[in-house]
């Protein structure tokens, strides 16, 4: 029935003058549990569904969306998209172009061992409490334990006037734990997250030692951590901070929409050496990470994308539009938060490839620097080429050894300087940064990672 509706809209769109018409059905079923200090005090269940329609008329984009799903409302939405495109026909601006692709026809569902919708909510609550309980006995300095569980099943069904008809269903499960520790007037928090493309099995396979206890240990130990020094330092980043760095510093700048619109610092640098020889960066939606998928939201089969190879910029991430404008090949990097948004160029699972050093070898030779661990958040100004990463904790490096524990540390740098200053890369690649990335008002599932690596000349926002 959905297929019929999508086909009706595309046919109708073409008959009304669209040179390209795409319609996307989106459905998301979300269940969550909020646990606060041993009590599963709130549970939530949501169903989101609707359609988004994109057209090109007279070389301009029109988009509309609605949750109202009958044929009449869908046709109304189509007419809104068409009148949208017509409304800007006379205005100067970006011409709508798209790369022609061979149509895909497929229906795919990611594997999961246990469908979370089939699990009794009481069993879910018991399991979340099992993960949380050991923290209550961890330390008398633990003040609060907040655990959130969330399972989401997302269905995206894309049909366009090339004949693409792709239906993909993706389960994601994610659990977060925030522990607040207190001593006198001082409070610190520790945070852990585990998330993947998986069903309920994700939480069955977890153990508190690698999750909630880790968050508690961090919160308590940060109570005695010191404020960081300030200035420029050599830093060594762990796989989480490394993943955040790669995402902010390189990933966003390689997104084709920022490139063609003149808002990326690396827009005109393809084929140039922009990073040290040790830097190879890949965005890979086919990997098993939180940001993975089989087809993007334009119905294009996803492939791994090499962005930087041995320090040389080799490519960008593309949608149908950016491939047409930049002469690239669309390989599945366009996604939309829901039916209410048009697809944008997005990263998936982005990482720095491993080399051969151990952490000890990377630290060796740093007389005075900072080791950064755990990613909190980051952002980038792509046009200026400046990024910021906030980390969870840090240590001083003195004569190659980790010494004083530091808290509330953020780093900032100019991207092209930082890429050239990567001077050592480890062998221990891990992707463990499941989360959401915000761009142009849309939020999207992503993951990222890196092995340990060293960057010289990074500004640390210290307080002493």
């Amino acid at each position, binding site marked *: 029935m959905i297929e019929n509706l999508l086909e009706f809209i595309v046919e109708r769109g073409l008959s009304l003058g669209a040179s390209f018409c795409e319609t996307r059905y989106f459905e998301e079923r979300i269940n969550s549990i909020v646990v606060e200090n041993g*009590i*599963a*005090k*709130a*549970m*939530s*269940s*949501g*169903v*989101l*569904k609707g359609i988004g329609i994109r057209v090109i008329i007279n070389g301009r*984009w*029109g*988009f*509309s*969306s*609605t*949750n*109202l799903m009958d044929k009449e409302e869908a046709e109304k939405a189509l007419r809104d*998209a068409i009148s*949208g*495109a017509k*409304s*800007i026909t006379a*205005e*100067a*601006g*970006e011409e*709508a172009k798209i790369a022609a692709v061979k149509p895909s026809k497929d229906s795919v569902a990611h594997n999961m061992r246990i469908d979370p919708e089939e699990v009794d*909510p009481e069993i879910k*609550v018991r399991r979340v409490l099992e993960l949380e309980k050991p923290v209550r006995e961890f330390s008398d300095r633990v003040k*609060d334990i907040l655990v959130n569980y969330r399972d989401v099943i997302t269905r995206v069904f894309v049909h366009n006037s090339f004949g693409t008809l792709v239906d993909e269903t993706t389960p994601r499960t994610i659990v977060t734990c925030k522990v*607040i520790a207190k001593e006198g*007037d001082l*409070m*610190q*928090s520790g945070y852990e997250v585990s998330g993947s493309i998986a069903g309920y099995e994700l939480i069955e396979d977890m153990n508190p030692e690698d999750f909630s206890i880790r968050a508690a240990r961090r919160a308590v130990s940060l109570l005695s951590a010191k*404020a960081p020094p*300030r*200035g*420029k330092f050599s830093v060594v980043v762990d796989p989480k901070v490394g993943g955040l760095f790669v995402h902010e510093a390189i990933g966003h700048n390689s997104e084709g929409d920022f490139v063609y*619109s*003149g*808002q990326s610092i690396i827009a005109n640098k393809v084929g140039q050496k922009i990073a040290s020889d040790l830097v190879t960066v890949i965005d890979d939606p086919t990997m098993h990470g939180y940001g993975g998928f089989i087809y993007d939201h334009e119905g294009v089969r996803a492939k791994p994308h090499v962005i930087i190879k041995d320090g040389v910029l080799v490519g960008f991430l593309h949608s149908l539009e950016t491939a047409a404008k930049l002469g690239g090949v669309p390989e599945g990097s366009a996604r939309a938060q829901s039916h*209410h948004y*048009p697809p944008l160029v997005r990263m998936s699972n982005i990482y720095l490839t491993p080399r051969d050093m151990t952490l000890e070898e990377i630290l060796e030779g740093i007389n005075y620097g900072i080791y950064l661990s755990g990613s909190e958040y980051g952002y980038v*100004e792509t*046009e*200026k080429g*400046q990024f*910021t990463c906030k980390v969870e904790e840090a240590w001083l490096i003195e004569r190659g050894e980790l010494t004083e524990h530091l808290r*509330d*540390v*953020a780093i*900032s740098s*100019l991207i092209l300087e930082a890429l050239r200053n990567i001077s050592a890369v480890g062998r221990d690649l891990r992707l463990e940064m499941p989360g959401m990335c915000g761009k142009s008002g849309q939020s999207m599932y992503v993951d990222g990672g890196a092995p340990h690596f060293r960057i010289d000349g990074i500004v*640390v*926002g*210290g*307080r002493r």
Partner: protein
Amino acid sequence: MININIDLYTPVERAMRALSELNVDFYDVVAVYSKSIEVSIFGRGIKEASSKVDVGLGVRAFKNKGLGVAYTQSLDESDVRETVKRAVKYAQVAQPDPYFKGIPGPSKAQKVPGLCDGEVIELTLEDASRISRNMIDACESIRRGGVYRGGFQAKHLMFHLSTSTGVDIDDEKTIVSAYIQPVYREDDDVGSSYEFDYGVRLSSIDPYIIGQKAAKKAIEQFGSKKIKSETLPLILLPEVSSTLFMSLLSALSGERAVKGRTFASNLLGKQVAPENLEIIDDGTIPRAVASSTYDGEGVPRRPVKVIEASVVLTFLHNSYSAGIMNVESTGHAVRDGYKGYVDAGPSNVRVKPGDSTLNEIIHETRKGILIVNASISPNIVSGELSTTVDEGFLIEGGEKSFPVKNLMVGGHILEILRGIDLVSKEGRVFGGGHFFPAIRIREAKISGE
């Protein structure tokens, strides 16, 4: 923007009727409809015109102090029935929250005027396109050859809330927002900035002024330089002081504040800044985006003095956090549309202006940093701050010297508040209700070269 005649009453009533038969202790049902239009700017000009119809219904059910929430984007009878069932089932599984004391009953309130502008409801995509074009033209009038990001959006929202305690309210609002970020290049140098405005009424924003301001700010960023680490005074423009004050009020809001989970949890009755800091939160200001007659639980909005003579007088409560402290809700419940959960947070925040002009503050600063764009938002638990100056200038000899880059500020928010030594008499109104002056912080730790 065509006004769709949507019926929010029937689905809410159906859900309320179904809930009344399901043996739960408290419940509420909210339905929200919105229609928005947008013309986006990207690259060399206007890129896309879009429209969106969003509708949804959310149910909160409480059983033995456990909360079940369910929401749907369909108002069909069967989906509404299913949503009610899911909320009730989850309420039965959720465990008793010892802090929960109930939900508010009905109260009469005087309607806040001017929250819905017919001109916004009547706007077409052609109108929106002209407004976006106007911003671009304004940028080009200052300097040609930029590339852009931004757009103009107009939204019309309708809301209906009904509760088992007798609350039955409607609300309606329009919001317009405009934003543009020009980027100019000279060889390897980049001049980039942004400007925005938003309001309830179309007449509350001037796209041409937004564009001109953005272009002028962008050009000023050419030639930015790195500077050395130092301890210097900071001057925060209203766009930046707003992030500091909003962080403080957020940390004084709701259960996170009363349960001792923020840096501000122990500030009640304490002085947080030099003598004259006064902050009022007022959700009743006519024609303001953050105003409403009732909060997200149906409690009337009212002006609340949060800080007077620099002393924190109160938290901002919804009924849950108020119940924990055995006080009345201050009318600060915040609902995430139809998606069920209710939080608490500030509405229109107004910081009392000071005695100096911004120019006087700059002239009185021998050396310091004027911050034009940054988020002075600390870790909400610890209050510690480590943030980048996204746009700023070095001040030397009481004058703007040059723009800075790759610079960070570190400190604790309470030190920063205690360090406020000058407050400007002029400031900026945001969304028709918030007011923030510029402020000077006596000294802060700057990280650079």
